[in-house]
């Protein structure tokens, strides 16, 4: 795979649509709302990007497979808001993009992937409503944030989704847990967004991503889906125990002490 040698600040300086110069802001807003192929021409002309590494034929096929699967998912779920498809998108990314965990926090790799292949998917997932209302400025801000991870690298579109799949995939049970949560997301109200925000962060370190799985199982996979406040409280509680080693504790401890169900 390739990665950019340009750092985060470079993109924030050269591509951010929130510029004090109106002409610059307007150009960048237009660019972020372009089709992928036109956007690539724009960044090639306007930005001085340096890359390293190679993309193999196999890697290009993996990326193409992800795009094809997303297209199918969109067509199958025309009447469902894209935000209710995050777990399914996570499964698509993780199942098809066979990369080493070593790349998990290589932000320059994720930015390269995002800018070169996923602009139109980001427009659909993060700016569909704004674009429908022709609020292109707001759309551009959202697109920029998830294209390069403006304030938080964890927001970079392909990385955010790939890690959802990683955290919930199990060698024995495949994507069963992810599928259950995804089904609940489409039909019930609950703290799904806060759950995602917590598992895409890089603080949860546990064997086979056990903590992400057990909390997903207890909070969002059952018939009763827990509310935003219970999800937020549970993660706060887990992260707050500095004097206890609970990353491999049993279900009962998580149920009673962490989630307080």
């Amino acid at each position, binding site marked *: 795979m390739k990665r950019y*040698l*340009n*750092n985060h600040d*470079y993109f924030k300086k050269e591509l951010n649509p929130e510029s004090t110069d109106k002409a610059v802001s307007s150009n960048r807003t237009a660019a972020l709302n372009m089709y992928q192929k036109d956007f690539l021409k724009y960044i090639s002309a306007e930005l*001085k990007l*340096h890359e*390293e590494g190679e993309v193999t034929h196999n890697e290009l096929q993996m990326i193409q497979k992800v795009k094809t699967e997303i297209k199918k998912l969109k067509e199958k779920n025309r009447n469902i808001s894209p935000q209710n498809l995050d777990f399914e998108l996570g499964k698509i990314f993780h199942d098809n993009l066979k990369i*080493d*965990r*070593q790349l*998990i*926090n*290589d932000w320059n790799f994720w930015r390269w992937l995002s800018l070169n292949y996923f602009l139109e998917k980001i427009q659909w997932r993060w700016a569909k409503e704004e674009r429908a209302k022709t609020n292109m400025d707001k759309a551009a801000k959202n697109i920029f944030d998830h294209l390069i991870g403006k304030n938080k690298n964890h927001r970079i579109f392909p990385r955010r989704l790939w890690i959802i799949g990683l955290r919930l995939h199990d060698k024995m049970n495949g994507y069963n847990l992810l599928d259950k949560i995804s089904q609940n997301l489409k039909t019930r109200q609950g703290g799904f967004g806060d759950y995602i*925000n*917590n598992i895409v*962060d*890089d*603080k*949860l*370190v*546990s*064997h*086979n*991503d056990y903590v992400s799985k057990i909390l997903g199982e207890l909070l969002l996979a059952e018939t009763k889906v827990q509310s935003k406040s219970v999800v*937020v409280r549970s*993660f*706060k*509680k887990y*992260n*707050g*125990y*500095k*004097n*206890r*080693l*609970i*990353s*491999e*504790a049993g279900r009962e*401890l998580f149920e009673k002490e962490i989630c307080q169900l």
Partner: protein
Amino acid sequence: MEERNIEIEPYKVKNNLIKLTGEVRLDSVDGVFLIEDDKLNLYGKELSNGEILIPRTKSKVMNLKITPKWEAGNYLKDVKELLHDDENISDAVLLRLRIKCDKTCWSGEQHKIKLSEIGKKVIEAKIPLSELSEEIEIESFITREVKYSKEVPLKATERLSILSQNEAFKIQIDNMKTIGGNFLPIEPKKLKDLLFQFSEANKHDIPIIYYSDELEEFFKRNNLMTVNNTFIFIMPAFLEHYLKWVIFTSQSNPIDKEYDSLVEKLSTLCKCEKSEMYEVISDNDTEKKLQKFLEWSKKLFEEIQYKSGISFRNELLKNIKLERKLKKEIQ
């Protein structure tokens, strides 16, 4: 992610009761590397055949054999003191070892050992390098394994409370790139004949390192050997400047994250406690400040050469070999 600490009744702990010993092997690499002191840097290590080791290019798996041992002292009495009088030490506590990589959020399964097995049991672990980045940590904890229902002041009662913890042993496998601007502010500027310059010092703002803008294109890339070498060997001078600024000019500001992380970095390299450095910064006694600066700058100069993820000696050896190889190829 928002964080807070859970308020729990304070209890007595006794840290650093255990030391880790053992060995590390990499598949396809001849040689055994010992687990001793607090860190093993495999990246750029010179092997007995003269080769410079870049673990990821040679190996796929790291094999660990670890034997936890007691540090000197009356260890059983030390642990018993942390339990309740009516508890049996062999039922109530375990030693847990965890191998993890923060950079990739990876963790191996915890290894659990009875205290009676310490010094005897060898723990083996095979870790694929593809799961890791930069460095791994081997942590050891003595944990309470059963809940104690009566409240006793200053004694832990909750299951999985950490009674004793050791400083993690670290194994570095990649170039960590902490040298070269990750924690220091650095910007391009028109500098005429100069290559580097510091911004004017004031007590609030961390000085900025300016470099000649003619080199911007090259300095922003991290794959140029000459640029990397330049930064490695200029780094002691940069850090000494920051140490001077922190001690003599700056106004102590631990709430500011950037200032605090600079003090933390400097105190690690000067082998002193962060709190001690803050004390010296706030002290009005110039004589004392001067004395500390001289003491710390000497340590800083030595520590920076191998403790910041890059071994100056190994890096230079590696590059000399590479240069000789390139010259031969050109001839």
